[in-house]
């Protein structure tokens, strides 16, 4: 622990966004802009069946009728959808049989990211699916997983090899007409991860996907679908990074989770897209729709997120509690610094009886950033004995940032108990004085206090992520003191 702490301090003092490199890999891209032909191009490129193309076209046509949502506490110049490349893939000359055949540049990229595919495979027992510029490049551990009947592969493989499962569940949680960005994603998504845990299987390893935007002017539109059948359990992790560029890049993803009777899905993410520079130039626009449905009784979905990256974050991981006695959880730490803007939170929709949900959200704003929690807790008439507890705390570091809380609570059942509490404050001078008095510099003291403040959420992260998240917190807040 002592050593960990020292490492963090070291990293705080000398690091900026360390994932901002760019790898020169030969790319296969779609023409700039979006029209029906782009959608057809993507679909053809991926050799998709007819029904998939239909799904995309339907979503695209619906998208044309929608306008960008404006209700969030976010400000950005209009996104020029016609200037974006909607599909970019590392050129693959042939089918890869093993890791040795992967482009060495790519391997190098992943080593830089700290996810050495090979090593992780051997040492940490984590199955990794790495997606670079929207295309899944390598999935590790597939053989081990297939022994248990667990399907963990790229989304395009799933479309080819497990069309029935994809057809059954894709769009069942986030329909293609759900919202502006979901419709866009449904039309142009290029790849992503697919994961199916069969009945009664407790997935033996933690599954993980790493997303990376590499090419310039491209948008990343990936799609994740996780299905846990009756009594299954899976812990799924997601990480993401992007190179430093002056222009903004768009990322619009969809994550769908289905938990059947007695199933449990634990989804953790450390979102670390490039947040833009200190003047607020560049960075990723992160517009993501994440939703899970507790379909069967006694099922459970848990979201844990650490949001440190992106120029703009628009993200509301939600749980629809349909099955009786189902449980939804949301733990979030969102850090914004410089000119970052985050509008994030959770929705808990109680439909079944005796459903429970917990929301713990910790926002930290520094620099000139704005950090909003926006959430909904809804209990419908027949959801007897629903229980919700929400806590949304905000910490302000600096007098030019903003911290906002917009909870919506709607109850229609008199047996429900809903509690919401929120506080906003800054790090008190007493706390800082106490640390400094013991010889801790103000920078480290803030790191310490912030980590303590976020602990409640960080402890829900899998081990591999927890350490990284702690470091990220410190790095993101670097230079925000004073």
């Amino acid at each position, binding site marked *: 622990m002592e050593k960990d702490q020292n490492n963090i301090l070291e990293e705080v003092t000398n690091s900026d966004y360390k994932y901002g490199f760019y790898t020169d890999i030969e790319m296969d891209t779609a023409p700039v802009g979006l029209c029906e032909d782009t959608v057809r191009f993507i679909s053809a490129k991926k050799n998709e069946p007819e029904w998939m193309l239909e799904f995309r076209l339907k979503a695209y046509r619906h998208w044309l009728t929608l306008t960008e949502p404006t*209700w969030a*506490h976010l400000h950005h110049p209009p996104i020029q959808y016609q200037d974006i490349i909607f599909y970019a893939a590392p050129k693959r000359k042939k089918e890869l049989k093993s890791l040795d055949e992967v482009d060495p540049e790519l391997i190098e990229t992943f080593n830089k990211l700290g996810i050495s595919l090979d090593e992780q495979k051997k040492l940490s027992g984590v199955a990794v699916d790495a997606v670079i510029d929207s295309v899944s490049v390598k999935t590790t551990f597939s053989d081990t997983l297939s022994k248990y009947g667990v399907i963990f592969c790229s989304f395009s493989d799933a479309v080819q090899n497990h069309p029935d499962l994809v057809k059954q569940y894709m769009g069942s949680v986030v329909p293609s007409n759900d919202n502006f960005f979901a419709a866009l994603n449904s039309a142009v998504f290029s790849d992503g991860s697919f994961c199916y845990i069969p009945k009664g299987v407790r997935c033996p390893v933690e599954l993980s996907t790493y997303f990376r935007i590499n090419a310039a002017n491209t948008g990343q539109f990936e799609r994740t679908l996780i299905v846990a059948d009756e009594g299954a359990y899976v812990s799924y992790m997601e990480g993401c990074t992007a190179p430093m560029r002056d222009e903004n890049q768009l990322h619009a993803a969809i994550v769908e989770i289905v938990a059947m009777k007695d199933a449990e899905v634990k989804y953790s993410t450390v979102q670390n897209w490039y947040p833009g520079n200190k003047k607020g130039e560049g960075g990723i626009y992160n517009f993501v729709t994440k939703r899970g449905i507790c379909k069967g009784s006694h099922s459970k979905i848990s979201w844990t997120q650490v949001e440190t990256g992106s120029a703009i974050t628009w993200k509301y991981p939600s749980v629809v509690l349909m099955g009786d006695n189902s449980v939804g959880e949301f733990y979030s730490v969102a850090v914004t610094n410089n000119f970052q803007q985050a509008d994030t939170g959770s929705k808990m929709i109680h439909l079944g009886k005796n459903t429970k949900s917990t929301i713990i959200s910790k926002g930290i704003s520094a620099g000139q950033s704005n950090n909003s929690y926006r959430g909904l807790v809804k209990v419908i*008439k027949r959801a007897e004995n629903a229980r919700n507890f929400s806590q949304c705390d*905000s910490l*302000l*570091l*600096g*007098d*030019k*940032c*903003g*911290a*906002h*809380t*917009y*909870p*919506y*609570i*709607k*109850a*229609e*059942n*008199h*047996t*429900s*108990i*809903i*509690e*919401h*509490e*929120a*506080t*906003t*404050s*800054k790090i008190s001078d007493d706390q800082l004085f106490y640390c400094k008095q013991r010889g801790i510099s103000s920078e480290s003291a803030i790191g310490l206090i912030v980590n303590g403040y976020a602990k409640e959420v960080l402890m829900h992260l899998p081990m591999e992520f927890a350490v990284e998240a702690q470091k990220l917190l410190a790095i993101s807040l670097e230079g925000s003191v004073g």
Partner: protein
Amino acid sequence: MPKQDVIMNVGIIQKTYDLQEYLKSVFDKMKHEITKNDTAFIAEKREKAFGLFNKAGFPHPALERWRGTDLSRALNHEYSTLPEPPPADLDIDKIFKCDVPHFETLLVTQLNGWYADRKNLIQVYPNGMIIGSLAEAFQKYPELVEAHYGKYADDKAESLTALNTAMSQDGIFIYIPDNVTVEQNIQMVNITDFKQNLFLNTRNLVILGENSHLRLVQCDDSINHDVTFINTVTEVKIGRNSSLDHYKLQNKDDHTTLINSMYFYQDEGSSLSTNAISLNGGLIRNLSHVTLSGAHSSADVYGLYLMDRHQHVDNQVYINHVAPDCESRELFKGVLDDQASGVFNGHIKVYRDAQRTNAFQTNKNILLTDKASIDTKPFLEIYADDVKCSHGATIGQLDAEALFYIRSRGISESNAKILLMYAFAAEVINKISIPELRQRMDDMVKKRLRGELSQCEQCVLNCSTQEHQKVSFVIDMSKI
């Protein structure tokens, strides 16, 4: 759609189509009538405000500020608007007699939006206090009025406030000069009595100078049971080191739509305590908009709502911390029975310069049935870092263990429930600092919980206790 208006009386146009269109035609045709007491300043404000209203239209639930409150049923009636002023020989004592025991008030009455005392439209008291008709004040004290009128009300954010600015004919004007402590409680009573459906815009202006102190009780009452839509806007300016104790009591019948918008603007060192108690009413929307513009000022905003049947209550509280070192506290509690629905929207906004702000907000609700619903949105929007802000919201039901405890002592279930609900409500009632009023509200809440106080009674302060006779009220409508 027929495009004709039937002019029935002076100032009364029978609605034949869309309400907004109708109001537009009234505004255009009756302009001489509406603006007859105006100064150029006021008339210009009306034009601008009507433009804003006409552009925005009536509010609907798709608007963020109107989520959960649907006016469409209330707007679907045919209304008359611009009622005539009451006759000069109207006996005010006959209209209204407040009989809260030992409750000394200076009564200021409004009838159908008009200042009721037509013989004595405005009065200057020995201590310099001015009370009277707002329309009269436009003429007599234009400088005083124009320094404040329309400055605090937000015509842009609320289209109904804009409509009010455009079309209100009269209301109450209260001016308290510097260094005056008003010993008496001032009671503003807004009575509606009209033989047709009435759409009423009334406007009040209250100005407190420096180092002044005032206790103000505002009551809304209706006499008859026709459909009424009352849109009241009250602007209150609280000067340096002044204090205002404000109570808003609502006990309307189920046919009434009451839109009550209060805009408070506070200077340095001032303090405000406002308490909205809604016991009955078809659809009530209370907007309390508080701007703390001077340092070291404080605002306490309290509310209690007890709703049943199909009643709907919407409490909107916007607190703007513009200046540093201010404090605000909010406490809203509600019990919703039958099919009643409630909305609470608390919005605390702390501006960049408002350092060392303390802002606290609490909303607690009890739902008694599965048909009752509550929609609560406790918002915080904070741009300063040296602040202590918190909000909490709960929705629940009566504590089963507490119920059991009381019942185990031989108290019937229904009484035990009333006891618990009363205890829940008492937290707000206990904030009332006028003892007589607190006592009376306490009685009324108990009655309300027992279901004895359901229909609109003539006065919110005049509940049907045995020891107090009913107030009779007759206006000869043939004279109007």
